[in-house]
């Protein structure tokens, strides 16, 4: 019966790759790097670029969970607060027998995952709007932190945190290594498992997903839990790199995580996108930050510049397609 003249699955075409948003974002990053290294000597040095990617790892880790949540049609505004909780929380859960610091890290990650899952339960079962639910969670966590940690910075030392912050096995910073492993796993989960397909189904049309037998509740809880977990990892990495944690350490990463997702071509309306775009998106963001730092301006102007540049980039690299 199979008709020979119809091609059901046409061969992969080079044009498809060239036209894809992730690839476009990679091009923008490359163009910026090349231009900046001509404009400012030292920018293009290997050490500096490696440093940029290391900073990108922090944003990129937080953007993993955000990508899952956004593709599933939601948004997680508690990312910054969860990062702070895990950065400040490690010293609170450290105990004497745990010499490597691995247990404290695991407990922290578990707590971050549970916080994320609670977000998901609020969204899926209580039917709270994702913005309201996660914003309320962020406010709650900030209050909790002030009660537990007070206003002062906490410092934590453990072999694990030290490794995260400063180790460079074969020249690659440990943070970048962790990011690479986490990225690979999330790309597989998103594009090569039924779970990933359900996430896309949920974001594109949750009603049709429900009627197709997709377990919308458990999928929703899972994406927010993933977001909690990756925010927790971000917090640990930040603590390792900074040596100390303080209330507010995670705040800048809320907007960055969302911006990285959107710059990478994932639809903020949900249902389409890929983490493969958020990776160059994260590097693009830290590159812009670095370039702005080079410009000798007051912090106020830098912030204004940063916001304007993100808007301009979104205008250039793609708005939402109109056919929705």
């Amino acid at each position, binding site marked *: *019966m*199979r*008709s020979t003249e*119809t*091609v*059901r*699955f*046409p061969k992969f075409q080079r044009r498809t790759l060239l036209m894809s948003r992730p690839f476009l974002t990679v091009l923008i990053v490359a163009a910026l790097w090349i231009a900046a290294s001509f404009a400012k000597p030292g920018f293009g040095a290997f050490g500096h670029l490696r440093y940029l990617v290391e900073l990108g790892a922090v944003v990129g880790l937080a953007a993993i969970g955000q990508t899952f949540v956004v593709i599933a049609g939601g948004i997680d505004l508690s990312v910054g607060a969860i990062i702070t909780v895990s950065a400040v929380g490690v010293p609170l859960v450290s105990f004497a027998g745990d010499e490597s610091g691995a247990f404290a890290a695991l407990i922290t990650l578990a707590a971050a995952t549970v916080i994320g899952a609670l977000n998901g339960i609020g969204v899926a079962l209580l039917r709270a709007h994702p913005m309201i639910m996660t914003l309320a969670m962020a406010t709650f966590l900030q209050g909790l932190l002030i009660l537990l940690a007070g206003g002062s910075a906490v410092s934590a030392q453990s072999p694990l945190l030290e490794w995260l912050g400063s180790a460079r096995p074969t020249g690659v910073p440990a943070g970048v290594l962790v990011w690479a492993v986490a990225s690979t796993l999330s790309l*597989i*989960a998103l594009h*090569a*498992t*039924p*779970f990933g*397909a*359900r996430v*896309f*189904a949920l974001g*594109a*049309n949750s*009603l*049709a*997903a*429900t*009627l*197709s*037998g*997709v*377990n919308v509740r458990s999928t929703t809880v*899972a994406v927010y839990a993933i977001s909690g977990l990756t925010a927790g990892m971000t917090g640990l990495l930040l603590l390792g790199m900074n040596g100390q944690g303080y209330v507010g350490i995670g705040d800048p990463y809320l907007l960055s995580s969302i911006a990285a997702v959107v710059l990478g071509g994932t639809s903020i309306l949900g*249902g*389409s996108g890929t983490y493969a775009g958020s990776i160059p998106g994260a590097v693009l963001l830290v590159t812009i930050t670095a370039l702005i730092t080079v410009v000798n301006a007051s912090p106020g102007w830098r912030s204004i510049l940063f916001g304007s540049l993100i808007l301009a980039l979104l205008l250039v690299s793609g708005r939402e397609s109109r*056919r*929705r």
Partner: protein
Amino acid sequence: MTPAPTLAARGVSKSFFGNPVLRDVSIALHPGRIHALLGENGAGKSTLINILSGALLPDEGVVEIDGRSFRGLNPRDAHRAGVAVVQQELGLTSQLSIAENIGLGALPRRYGLIDYRCLARRARAAMDLVGLDEDLATPVGDLPLGRRQMVEIAKALFREPRVLILDEPTSSLSAHEVETLTSLLDRLCAKNVAILYISHRLNEIMRVCQHVTVLKDGVVTADRSIEGVEAADLVRLMVGRDTGHLFPAWTPTTDRDPIVSVSGLSAGVLRNIDISIRRGEVLGVGGLVGQGQEDLLLSLYGALPASARTAEFNGRAKLPSSVRKANALGLAYVPADRKREGLHLIHNIGWNLMLPSFARAFGLSLRDRTKERALASALADRFTIKGDLTRQVQALSGGNQQKVALAKWTPAEPQVLLLNDPTRGVDVETKREIYALLRRLAGEGKAIVLSSSDTPELVHLCDRVAVMREGRIVATIEREALSEEAIVAASMGADLMRTAA
């Protein structure tokens, strides 16, 4: 001597991306005449409507209004000349009230503000014409599909059009609403309005229209008076060959045991329903639109919180409490609104075909792309879905979308198939394929529940038809007693035949 046409297209051609959609098409709409436009999905009907209403510019040819030709007709000109289109895809804003929707774009103003009193008066008048008695302030989203369609027609009438183009106006209307519409069209005709009427229901066209234009693959194959034309002739002109009967011949299977039986079912608008579904039968669900048919299917499918006195599903004594449990019990549901409920429009055809399998599989197992592609291709072949499966579903015509919505359940091998108006807005050829498929599945011992607003479908395809009114099953008509009259009578409350449910 006929009067000059109010709206006409002369020698119009149009192609999209090099594919000719219309070739040298002419059509003339005369005042006081109901003109039918017939053609399969993809024949170019929608393109022609869009050209007539100024939404698209023809590559060649002209559009004439009152004998004046327009090369670049735009929607404003067409609107000003009194051309109103009732689209097949409802273009209403569900959060706004009925009155606001009717007036949208032509709201009466006073001192620069909306004159709500005038709007209410005129909207009410338009609603009376189409027989809508709902409160003007009701949000359109709260109305069932058929009523929304009537609002859409009232919206067109509000503008007092001289040319009224109706694109499948009856596809979601009940028999009663179709009656109202028919008499309305007759009255508009008497007022010298020119009407273009597009429908897939031939007997309706034979009854309502005076003139017919048939399109096949973008070419006019007939342009003549409807007098003396046989329905079979029209079908042949549309599909280009003799098609035989639309409905498959079949013999009822005897000795059928129930696979689902529920008594005292209450959910949504449903009150105390007893129903039993047997293996190997097509059980029809009829009635006026919005009498609880959808709630019945959804509650059996676990998608609507429901309670029942006794229930037995495929040997399990419990109503499924979720869609997943219903799927596990061998039930599948194909929704009426395939764009909103049945498909993921922005995802590709292959992916849509695989979705129920993704929902069933263990979440973190690895997908086998080779297997997925083979399965999707096999499904597409079997359901004659043509072409590349990596296209987005929204690129497909209505009939092909419906095939995807049906085909995606096949790998799950459902024992009970719940279908909600599966042939709405579907072309004749696809309808025939769907009918044949349903009978074949019934022949294999599957149970099929077919809710439909198309009464002939219920008469010719079903072993039994349960007729619903106000959330109850008011009659179950057996095959021997099935007729359009019996179904309509029961749905309107005239108890002609009643047999035990």
